[in-house]
C-alpha cells in the first residue's frame, strides 16, 4: 500500500514538477514588446501616403458611379471617421526613438502627427488636439481629461500644427542617426525637409481666408519659408514628390488593381470631360477611355463623353448601357503599379506658389509657377508616354491655358484640380470648398442634401459614446444648426 502511494506521489510530482513555471508563460513568443522605430515608420508612411480614393473622386465630380446610388456622389453624407489610431502609431515611434536615442524619427513624427491632425480638422472642424494621446503617452487610463480629451478650436490647432512643422524642419538633421524603413525617401533627410516645408505651404494656403488672423501670421510664415531656401528647402522636381510607389506583390499593388467595381462601375463625369475638352488637355487620354459607341481613337477628344454626377442613377445607367459614356482608364483597374500615391506633389507646390503670388503673399511670376505646375502634372500623368513632349509644349503654349488677368485663381485651382485626378486624397475637394473652383454640378434630380455641396462630415458615433460632453460642446460652439454636413467650419468663414 505504502509503495503504491509512494509511486503515485512520485508520479504526481513528476507530472506537476516537469511543468514550466508560471513566469515562463508571461512572454508572448509571437509578438514583440519593444522595437526599433524603423519598424514603426513603414506602417505610418503607408497610411499617410495612401491617398487614392474613389469616393473623393465621386464627391469631386471627376467620376460617376453606376452600381447604385452613391452617397459620396449625391452628397448624402453622414458621419466621418477619425484617425487617431494613426497618431497612436506615431507616438509609439516617438517613444521608441527616445528609447533608442534616434531623434530624427521624432521630428518626422511631428510631421505625421500634424498631417493626420490637419486631415481630421478639415473633415470635422474642432477636434481634440492639445490634450490628445495622454493615455498612450503617459499610461493614464483613469483621468477624464486623458480618456475624454477636450476639443480645441481650429485656430489653436492650426497654430500648433504650424509650430510643430517648423520645429520638424528646423530640427531634422542629416548628421544624426539615419532613419531606416523609409518607403518614401529611403532615409534622405534633405528630401524630408523639402516635403515638410512644401506641406507647410499647403497648410498656410488652406488658411487663405484667415490671412489677417494675427495669431497665425500666415503671410509672414509663408514668406519665411519661400525666402530662405537654404534653411527651408522646397521640392524642386517630380523626383521630390512625397509619394508611395506600388509594387506587383500581393498587397502592395495599386488599391483598385483588379477591383471589380473599378472595372465596370466608374465613368468620367461629364463636367470633368468638358473641362479637359475645352482645354484640349491630353491628360483626358490617360484618365478615361473613349465611349464604346464612338469607336474613336483614344487621342480624339470628341470620342469622350461623361455621365452626370447629379443625375439619377437610371439616367446614368441608361446612357452607359447605350455605350455613350467614357469609363475610367484601364490603367486604374488593370495595372498592378499604375502611378504612385501622392501625399503632396511638386506640381501642387507650384500651384500654391503661383496662387501666393496672385494673392500678394510673395513676389514672383505667377505664370511661371503655374506653367511649371502644369508641366510637372503632365509629366507625372504621362502613363506609358501616351502623349509626346511636343504635345505637352503645345498645350503649355496654348491660349486656353495661359493665365488671364482677373481669372488667375480660377485657372490655377482648375489646373490643380486636373492634376489631382484620382490622387492626393480629398485635397481637390477641399480646394474647391475653399475657392469655389471648379464649379461642381448639383442641378440633377439625383442630388441629395437639398442640392448643396456638403462642407464637412458629422462627428463619428464613437465620440458621442466615449466623449459625449466634449463633442457636444464642440458642436454647440461651432455649428448653430447642430452637427450638420452643411456647417461652416472656422477656416471657411
Amino acid at each position, binding site marked *: 500500500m505504502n509503495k503504491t502511494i509512494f509511486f503515485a506521489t512520485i508520479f504526481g510530482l513528476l507530472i506537476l514538477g516537469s511543468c514550466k513555471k508560471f513566469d515562463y508563460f508571461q512572454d508572448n513568443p509571437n509578438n514583440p514588446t519593444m522595437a526599433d522605430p524603423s519598424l514603426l515608420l513603414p506602417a505610418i508612411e503607408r497610411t499617410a501616403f495612401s491617398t487614392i480614393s474613389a469616393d473623393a473622386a465621386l464627391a469631386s465630380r471627376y467620376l460617376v458611379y453606376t452600381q447604385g446610388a452613391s452617397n459620396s456622389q449625391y452628397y448624402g453624407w453622414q458621419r466621418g471617421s477619425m484617425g487617431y489610431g494613426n497618431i497612436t502609431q506615431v507616438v509609439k515611434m516617438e517613444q521608441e526613438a527616445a528609447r533608442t536615442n534616434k531623434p530624427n524619427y521624432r521630428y518626422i513624427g511631428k510631421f505625421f502627427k500634424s498631417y493626420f491632425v490637419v486631415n481630421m480638422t478639415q473633415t470635422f472642424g474642432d477636434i481634440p488636439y492639445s490634450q490628445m494621446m*495622454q493615455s498612450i503617452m503617459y499610461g493614464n487610463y483613469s483621468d477624464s481629461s486623458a480618456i475624454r480629451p477636450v476639443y480645441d478650436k481650429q485656430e489653436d490647432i492650426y497654430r500648433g500644427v504650424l509650430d510643430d512643422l517648423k520645429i520638424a524642419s528646423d530640427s531634422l538633421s542629416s548628421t544624426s542617426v539615419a532613419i531606416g524603413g523609409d518607403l518614401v525617401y529611403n532615409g534622405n533627410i534633405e528630401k524630408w525637409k523639402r516635403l515638410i516645408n512644401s506641406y507647410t505651404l499647403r497648410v498656410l494656403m488652406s488658411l487663405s481666408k484667415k490671412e489677417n488672423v494675427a495669431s497665425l501670421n500666415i503671410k509672414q510664415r509663408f514668406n519665411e519659408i519661400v525666402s530662405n531656401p537654404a534653411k527651408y528647402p522646397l521640392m524642386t522636381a517630380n523626383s521630390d514628390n512625397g509619394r508611395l510607389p506600388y509594387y506587383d506583390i500581393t498587397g502592395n499593388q495599386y488599391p483598385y488593381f483588379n477591383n471589380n467595381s473599378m472595372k465596370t462601375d466608374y465613368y468620367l463625369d461629364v463636367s470633368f470631360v468638358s473641362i479637359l475638352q475645352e482645354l484640349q488637355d491630353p491628360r483626358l487620354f490617360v484618365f478615361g477611355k473613349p465611349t464604346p459607341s464612338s469607336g474613336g481613337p483614344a487621342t480624339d477628344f470628341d470620342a469622350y463623353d461623361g455621365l452626370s454626377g447629379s443625375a439619377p442613377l437610371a439616367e446614368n445607367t441608361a446612357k452607359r448601357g447605350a455605350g455613350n459614356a467614357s469609363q475610367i482608364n484601364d490603367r486604374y483597374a488593370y495595372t498592378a503599379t499604375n502611378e504612385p500615391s501622392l501625399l503632396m506633389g511638386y506640381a501642387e507646390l507650384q500651384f500654391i506658389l503661383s496662387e501666393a503670388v496672385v494673392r500678394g503673399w510673395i513676389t514672383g511670376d505667377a505664370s511661371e509657377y503655374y506653367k511649371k505646375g502644369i508641366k510637372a502634372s503632365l509629366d507625372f500623368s504621362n502613363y506609358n508616354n501616351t502623349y509626346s513632349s511636343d504635345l505637352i509644349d503645345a498645350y503649355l503654349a496654348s491660349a486656353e491655358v495661359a493665365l488671364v488677368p482677373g481669372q488667375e485663381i480660377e485657372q490655377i485651382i482648375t489646373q490643380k484640380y486636373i492634376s489631382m485626378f484620382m490622387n492626393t486624397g480629398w485635397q481637390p475637394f477641399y480646394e474647391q470648398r475653399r475657392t469655389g473652383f471648379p464649379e461642381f454640378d448639383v442641378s440633377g434630380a439625383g442630388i441629395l442634401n437639398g442640392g448643396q455641396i456638403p462642407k464637412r462630415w458629422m462627428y463619428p458615433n464613437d465620440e458621442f459614446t466615449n466623449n459625449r460632453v466634449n463633442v457636444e460642446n464642440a458642436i454647440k460652439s461651432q455649428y448653430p444648426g447642430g452637427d450638420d454636413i452643411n456647417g461652416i467650419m472656422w477656416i471657411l468663414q
Partner: protein
Amino acid sequence: MKRTAICFLLLLLTFCGFTQGVAVTGTVRSAEGTPLAGVTILDKSTGKGTNTDLAGKFTIQVATNATLEFSFIGYTKQEIALNGRRELTVQLALSEGTALDEVVVTTALGIKKQQKTLGYAVQEVSGETMAKTKTPTPLAALTGKVAGLNINNTTDLFRNPGISLRGRTPLIVIDGIPDPDADPYKINADDIESISVLKGPAAGALYGALGVNGAIMYTTKKGRKGKLQVEVNSSTMFQTSYTVVPEVQTVYGNGDQGRYAYSNGSGGGAEGGGWIWGPKLDQRDPSTPSGFYETTQYDSPIDPVTGQRIPTPWISKGKNNIKNFFRTGILSTNSVSASVGTEKGSFRVSANHMYQQGVVPNTGLNNSSFSIGGNYQLAPKLSMDAKLTYNREYSDNYPVVGYGPPNYLYNLILWIGPDIDIRDLENYWMPGREGLQQRNYNLSWYNNPHFIANELLNGYKRNNSFGQATFDYKISKDLSVKFRNGFNQYSSIADVREPYSYIAYSYISRGNYSSDQSNYFDINSDLILNYKKDFGENFGINVTAGAANAYRRFESVYTSTDGLTIPEFYSITNTINPLKGSNLLRERRTGSVYGMIDAEALGFLYLNLTGRYDKTSTLPIENNGYFYPSVGLSAVLSDKLELPEAISFLKLRGSWAKVNTGFISGNNPYAHINTYQIGPKWNNVPSLIMPTSYISPNLVPETVESSEFGAVIGLFKNRINLDVTYFSNLDYNNFQPVTLSQASGNSSVVKNANIFQRRGWEFMLSGYPVRGKNFKWETSFNFSKVHRWLKDATDNGDGYLGQIKEGQRMDRIYITESRTPDGQAIYNANGMQAYTPFGQYFGDRDPDWIYGWQNTFTYKNLSLTFSVDGRLGGLIYSTTNQKMWWGGTAKGTVTPFRDDANAGNSTYVGPGVVVTSGNVEYDSYGNILSDSRKFAPNTTPVNYISFMQSTSGAMLNNYFYYSGTYLKMRELVLTYELPSKWVKGAFSGASVSFIGNNLFILSKIPNVDPDAERDELQTPSMRSIGVNFNVRF
C-alpha cells in the same frame, strides 16, 4: 510496521477464504421470455457483482445463503435469497415508468452519481439515440433533445454545428478528460455509451474555469464482462431531394436596365456590370432568324469575317440551374466493435468509417476512427482503465462558405441569370488556354461554379488521437485514490490550391498554393482521493479531494506562394514573388486543487459542496490564482412526506456557484500582454503596428455567479415526469474592451467591466402515455429559453453600452434605415430610402423559446422513433434573400415595374412616406428627444431597377430580418428487430431500420433553412433518406 502489514495480509487471506463460497449460475429473462443481456447482479452482502451475457446467462461466486439483487434499466428491481440454490431462473418485469429514484448520471470528472442527489440540472442522452440515424457529428444528434442546449446545424459540408448551452459555449469532455479543442468530428457516434449534459456553472464547477459554461460529457462504451460480443452497424443515407432550396426568378437574364450584350466578359458597358437586371427572356421577335429576341452572349459564335460575335436567341436555358448543379449527397457510416471480458478485466475495440459525398460536385469528407480500451484488475486493490482513440479526418476539397467569390453559391444562386445553362459551363477552361483562364459568362466578377468545384481545392487532413489512463487504488474499504492522465493531440494540414484566373474581390489569381500546418497537444493530470462513509441509516458522506495540472500547446506554420511560376503546379517552391508565411506558438498551463463533499442525511436530503483553486498562466502573475465554490441541495420529498397517491416522486433542488475564469481569449493565452503586431510588408520592408486596444495590467478573473432552482415531479407511478429548472447567472468582472475616446491614443482598454445577467427556464416533460404488453409509446418534450440583459454598464456614467441601456436585452437589433414611429419607410426627395445618423431599435435576435419533441412507438419487434424540434421568435438576418433582391434573382422582382424600368421608365414609387416639415433630434445614444416631423406619402417615381440596386427593397422584406420561428422534422427511424428464431445460430440479434433526416420544415424565412440561426449563403437544405443494418454476434 512489518507486523501490521503481515496482519493485514493474513486478514486479507482470511477474508478471501471466507468469501470463496459457491458458484451460482442462472438465466435472466423478460416477462415475454426473451433473454436479457447486461442485467446487473449484485451480492447484497459483499457488494460483488456481475452481468448477464447476451444469452441472459450469468455465473457468480457467492455464499450459499446470499441474497442477489437483479437490476436492469426499465425493469423493476428484484431481490432473491438463494437459500442454498445453485441455479436460478429469474424473470424481470417491466417497470411502470422511469424509476426516477434510480437514475444514475455522469457528473464532473466522470463520477457517476444518482441523479436524485444532485442539486443542479444534468440531462443524460443515451448513445442509442444516435445508433441508427447518422448525422455528420454526434453533437448534431443532440439537436432538440436537451432542454437549454441549442445546436445550430449548418447545411454546409464539414462545418461545425454551433453549440450554445444556456447562451454560452460549453466545455466538451470525453471520458472525464476535457477537450478544449472540441473538434466535433473526432468522436465516433457508435462508440458513445451516453452523453451527459451538465447545464450550469454548479455542475461544471469541478472542471474549473473550463466548466464555467457547463459541459457536454461523452462517456464511451467499455468492454463488458462476458463472452465475446461483436456488433456491426451500418447506415447509408442519400440526399436526394431538397427540404429548402432557394427559388430564383426565371424571367429576366443577365444585364442592367434591361440591356445586355456580351463583348469581352469584363462586365463593363452593355454587359451591365454583372447584374441580373437584364432583358426579359423568351420574347418573340419576328425580325430575327430564331424568332426570339437576340443579343450577343458569351457562347455566341464569332463571325469569321468580321471577328464580331453573332447574336443568339435570348432564352431561358437555365431554369433549373440550381438543381442541375448539385448531385446526390451520401452519408455512409460503417462500424464494427468487439468486446470481451473476464472477472479480471475486459476490453473493447472498435473501428468506424464515415464517408460523406457532398452535394457539390467534387466535394467530400472521410472520417475514420479506431479505438481500443479496457480495464484490468492489476492487483486485488489496484485496477486500471485506459483508452486510446485514433481518428483521421480527410477531405481533398470541401466548399468555402460565406458571401463571396470562392463560394459556388455566390456564383450559382445570386449572380447567374437564367439565360445561362449551368450545364454549358461544365467545360470550364477557355479552349486553348487550359490551366490559365477559366471559361465563364463574366470574367471580372464571377467564377464558373464548376471551375470553383473542380479547381479551387480546399483540402484538410487531420489526425486526432486522444485517450486516458487511470489507476485506481483502494487503500481501504472507505478510502481510494485515483491517478488519471488524459490527452488530446492533433496534427492538421489545411491547404488551398488556387488556380490561375480565379477571381476574388480586387484580385485575379496568378495561381497560389498555401499550406497551414498545425500541431496541438494537451494533457490533463488528476490525482484524486476519495473517502466514503455511511454513519448508520441517516447519514452518509463522500469526500473527494484532488490536484490537477493542465497544459496546452498549439503551434502552427502557414506558408503561401505569391503567384505560381508554372500554372497548376501546386508546390511552395513554385512561387513568383518571395514566399509569405507566419507561425504561431501558444502555450498555457493551469494548476489546480479541488475538493467535493457529498453528504446524505435522513434518507432524503442531499448536499453537494465543491471548491476549487486554480492558478493560470493566462493572467498577470499577481492576479493569477482564484478560488471558486459551489453548493447544491436536493430534497427528495417523496421519500419523506406522505403525498397524494398520484405523486410518486417529488424532488426540489437548488444550487449556487461562483466560477471564475482567467481565460481572456479562448484561443490566445497571451491576451493579457500588450505587444506590437506584425504588420504587412511593403516591397519586402517589414513593419510593426501597435494595436489601439490597451490591455490593463490589473486584470482579475472574470466571474459567473449562478443560482439555479428546480423541481422534478413524477406522476402516476412515474409514468409522467416533469422537470423544471430556473436559473439566473450574473456575469461580472467581464474581460471587456471598454471604449475610450480614440483621441486618448487608445480606442479601448481591456479591463474587468460591465455586469450582465442571463436568466432562463428549462422544462422537460416525459413519460409513457401507453405502456401495454405489445405496444409502447415513450415521449419526451422539452422547451427552454435564455436571454441576456445588461445589468450595469460600469464604465459609462449614463448607463449605456453602445446603444444598449442598462436593463435592456443584449441581443437588440438596430437598423439605420429611416422609419416613421409606426414603421413606415421614409424616403429622400429622390425617392430612395433615407437613413438615420443613429441606428434605431428594430427587434431582438435570440429565440423566445427553443423546443424539441421525441417519440418512440414500439409494437412487438417494430419500433418507430421520430424527433421534431425548432424555435419560436427572434429575428434572423438573411444575406441570401437580401442579395437576391439586390442582384435581381429574387422571384418578387418579377413585376410590371421591372418591365417599365427595362423600357427606361421610372414608374416605381417606394411604399412609405417623405418628411414634409419638422425634424427629429437624438441624444448621443440615438434615443429620440423630440420629433416634429410631418409626413406625407412618398409620390416620387423612380426607376425600379435603380431602386432595388440602391435599397435591395429592404422595406418590402422587413429589412431582411425574418422571424426565426420554425418546426423541423429532424429524424424518423422505423426499426424492425429480427425475431430471435430467425437469426438463431447466426447472430444473437439483428435489426434493419429505415431512416430519414431533415425531412421537412415549416418556417417563416424564405429560401433558407433557419436551423443554423444565421444565413450568409448556405448550401440548400437536403432531405436524407436511407437504411441502417445492425447485427450482433
